């Protein structure tokens, strides 16, 4: 370890360059990890929400509702079905509007909102977004679903939102991985070249050590330690920068995504992110070091 620290002190600017490149790379990897985790949470949130809501006729008999539920379950495509009665609907409505007298109808001429004016509904979650059409068709064929004034069955069908979200998440993940790969190759090249230069500049010393009986491992260990030091410092700073970005963006994110993703991000997640980034960094550093050392030994 001491010879490695000495090597770093001897050429501080090379060391700073290596650490900066690694920090930038790991900052990007760290941010993309956070974005991927967030987008995954958003996707899960929307996937676990009722994906198909069918509003029922006031006159729909309970037996027919039960029969429709049985039909839906028999398709094997349904994850869950929830029957929301008129009273449940009122409760949900009141919870969502809070104490707003205007929305509760208490200050309007129309009078207070009651359960009578809200329809009962069936909230259906499907196993896969590809099953939307089939499940929706079962509901379309049922007589219990109410009709709009235009004669269309009242079925909320947010198929496009979820599938588009899934596509965006996938694209984001792919872009992140591609960027991380490009930056990783740059980091490996920068650190590898840096270490190669140092090994080359100490060739006489290395040759002397080998002449007095040193093994390759003894001679080259300090250079591998050096890459480990670069990795740990670079990894820590990469994580730190992303953590700072996260801290400053949390107030903005809370207003848009509260309830969808856990905000502020739990300390344990941040700690695991640090461990993940340090591991990736260490892997990159060691790979660069081994790459440089092997190149030297092959000469």
């Amino acid at each position, binding site marked *: 370890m001491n010879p490695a620290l000495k090597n770093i002190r001897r050429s501080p600017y090379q060391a700073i360059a290596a650490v900066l490149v690694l920090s930038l790379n790991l900052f990007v990897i760290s941010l993309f990890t956070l974005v991927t985790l967030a987008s995954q949470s958003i996707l899960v949130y929307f996937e676990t929400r009722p994906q198909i809501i069918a509003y029922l006729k006031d006159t729909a008999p309970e037996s027919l509702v039960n029969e429709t539920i049985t039909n839906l379950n028999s398709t094997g495509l349904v994850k869950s079905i929830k029957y929301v009665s008129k009273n449940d609907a009122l409760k949900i409505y009141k919870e969502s509007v809070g104490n707003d007298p205007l929305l509760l109808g208490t200050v309007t001429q129309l009078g207070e909102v009651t359960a009578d004016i809200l329809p009962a509904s069936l909230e259906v979650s499907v196993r896969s977004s590809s099953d939307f059409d089939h499940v929706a068709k079962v509901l379309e064929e049922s007589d219990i679903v109410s009709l709009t004034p235009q004669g269309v069955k009242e079925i909320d069908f947010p198929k496009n939102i979820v599938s588009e979200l899934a596509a965006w998440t996938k694209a984001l993940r792919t872009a992140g991985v591609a960027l991380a790969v490009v930056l990783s190759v740059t980091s490996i090249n920068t650190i590898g070249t840096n270490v190669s230069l140092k090994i080359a500049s100490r060739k006489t*010393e290395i040759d*002397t*050590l*080998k*002449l*007095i*009986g*040193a093994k390759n491992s*003894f001679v080259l260990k300090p250079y591998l330690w050096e890459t480990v030091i670069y990795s740990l410092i670079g990894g820590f700073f990469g994580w730190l920068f992303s953590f700072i970005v996260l801290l400053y963006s949390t107030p903005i994110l809370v207003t848009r995504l509260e309830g969808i993703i856990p905000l502020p991000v739990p300390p344990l997640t941040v700690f695991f992110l640090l461990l993940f980034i340090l591991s990736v960094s260490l892997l990159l550093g060691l790979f660069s070091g081994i790459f440089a050392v092997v190149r030297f030994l092959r000469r």
Partner: protein
Amino acid sequence: MIEFKEVTKQFPAGNVVLEKVSFLIKPGEFVVITGPSGSGKTTIAKLLIKEIEPTSGEIVIDSENLGLLKAKHLPSLRKKVAVIFQDYKIIPDKTVAENISLALQIINFPKTQILERITHLLGLVGLSEKENLFPGQLSGGELQRAAIARAVAVEPSILFADEPTGNLDLATAGEIMLLLKKINQSGTTVIVSTHDLNFIDLASRHLHLLKGKIVAEDTESIEKPPKKVKKK
């Protein structure tokens, strides 16, 4: 025991540095190899630690044929055969003590005893006050002593000193030769290559090289080599 059997070394440029050289050095001997510059003395040192390979012939050290020695066993050979290089090869940005410490670390010498061992070695070579000096701050004679201390640190069974008196004044050269004799008396086989004939009387045997061939060999101490060397 070192045995050279008909060893020839020809470099790619075509120059033959050693030609069918044969000799045998027994354990504990103090052998001086003399010869003018370019006669092949340094080549013998390089062949002994397998820094270069002979073009033909065999080199056997303690019944181990160096030609058959695998690369992974080189470090152990170089711990057995230590060379004091003509240009010292002391690492310039490390102090005298650090240079010796490196040699001890290479042989996995117990860390807690390294300092004690360095003090002992520096006392042996007369550099006790210079342990924290850098090579650039030492004289030629002191550098030579530092190189001897580093070589002896690993307790080699064979010590090859390549032109140890080459750059030194007569008095310092004499001190260095006496130091090597002292090391030899502790049981180490010592081989000294030199073109200086002033100190061959310290040796138990003398080999004289000329143009890559041994032209004279004597088993007695010789005061005036040209008169006493026997033709082969």
